[in-house]
């Protein structure tokens, strides 16, 4: 057993590359999904019915589709429509679009729970439209939504593992190749599991420190 872990240690280059790719994928997808979600969120709360219904339809559709099936459709299905993406682009696009819906819904929920007064005060001071949203609504929104957003980031990290099926060289894919090369499944996958655990504990620690920041601002 210890010998197996020594083999994993010798192959650490592969695992570290995989871990880096998982982190890059998750960071890019989180940033993009949060930004797009922040743009979609005002549409979800729009006074115009057409905008609201279209945004809600997108969000509901994404919440009902399994992520793996969505990734398959983006990677294998879109070429039928003339859109060809390599596995990196397809993986990132799938991860981002899918989580945009969740982020928008998370922000909407947090927005609905915000006190009305500062928002009205913002209007009274002459802020309107996007500027009002960006300067007045968004900052406290992000602070209060941080724990739920943190959970979604953990979800994104876990979803990124599914991209192994389109041969994206992330952490699970790296563990798979070490296991098939040396036939040491336990050592290879347990190491991957522990690395995922570390990543998620890091995210939880970040959320906790944002929570302390929000507490201090109040």
């Amino acid at each position: 057993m210890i010998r197996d872990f020594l083999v994993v240690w010798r192959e650490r280059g592969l695992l570290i590359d995989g871990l880096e790719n998982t982190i890059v994928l998750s960071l890019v997808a989180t940033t993009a999904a949060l930004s797009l979600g922040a743009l979609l969120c005002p549409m979800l709360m729009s006074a115009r019915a057409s905008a609201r219904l279209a945004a809600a339809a997108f969000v509901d559709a994404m919440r009902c589709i399994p992520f793996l099936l969505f990734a398959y459709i983006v990677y294998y299905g879109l070429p039928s429509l003339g859109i060809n993406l390599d596995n990196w682009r397809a993986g990132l696009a799938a991860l981002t679009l899918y989580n945009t819906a969740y982020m928008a819904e998370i922000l909407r929920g947090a927005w609905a729970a915000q006190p009305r007064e500062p928002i009205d005060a913002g209007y009274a001071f002459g802020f309107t439209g996007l500027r009002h949203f960006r300067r007045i609504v968004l900052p406290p929104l992000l602070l209060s939504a941080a724990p739920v957003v943190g959970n979604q980031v953990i979800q994104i990290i876990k979803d990124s593992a599914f991209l192994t099926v389109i041969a994206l060289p992330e952490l699970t894919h790296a563990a798979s190749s070490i296991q098939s090369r040396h036939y040491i499944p336990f050592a290879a996958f347990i190491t991957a599991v522990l690395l995922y655990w570390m990543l998620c504990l890091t995210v939880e620690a970040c959320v906790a420190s944002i929570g302390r920041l929000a507490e201090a601002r109040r």
Partner: protein
Amino acid sequence: MSAADIVAILQGAVTTASLSCIAIVLGLPLGLLLAITRWARVPGLAQVVMVYVSVLRATPLVTLLLLLYFALPNIGMPIGAVSAAILALVMNTSAFNCEVWRAGLMDFPKDQYEAAQAVGMRSLPRLRRIVLPQVFRVSLPGLVNEMSLLIKVTPVLAVVGVVDVTRAAVRIGAETYEPLPPFLVALAIYMPIVYAIVALQRLMERRLARAQAAE
């Protein structure tokens, strides 16, 4: 895509539905057991459960599944694709269910618990007749939410060769060189099922909120 292909995908749907149901039926009580172990602070075991839940909540299902499927035979426990799939789903969902149950247990009003103690109820009937019925009602929306999440991760089971909806659709796409139609059939199967569960969860949340407002 022929009619036979659609039948093949529907057969995959039966597999997906059966595996999901088995995982839900096993995962609900197991999650409760884990939650009670932590809630009752069983020495030693409570800490084990805490680590188990923390690790499993952070582990992608695909990684867990590959670990079980390849590593268990390696340490002398032969396991088939379907058993590995069920084991992975149950381990995964029990960890999430544990947190939902535990939140319900932690919120349980202490005065009721002490009242039951005061009238001399023993701990097991106290749990079964006073605590659990109320905790079950409060936890139900969260548990149903976890069910929808469970169904959404089942396509991963195809990775070890379980012929579910997704694997059937992938195979047909590869055979006909037209992957989009079978994927759309798969979507048409998943979406209404997940939507129905999400709608059920919203309904239950509203009813619970109304019941709590009336109290």
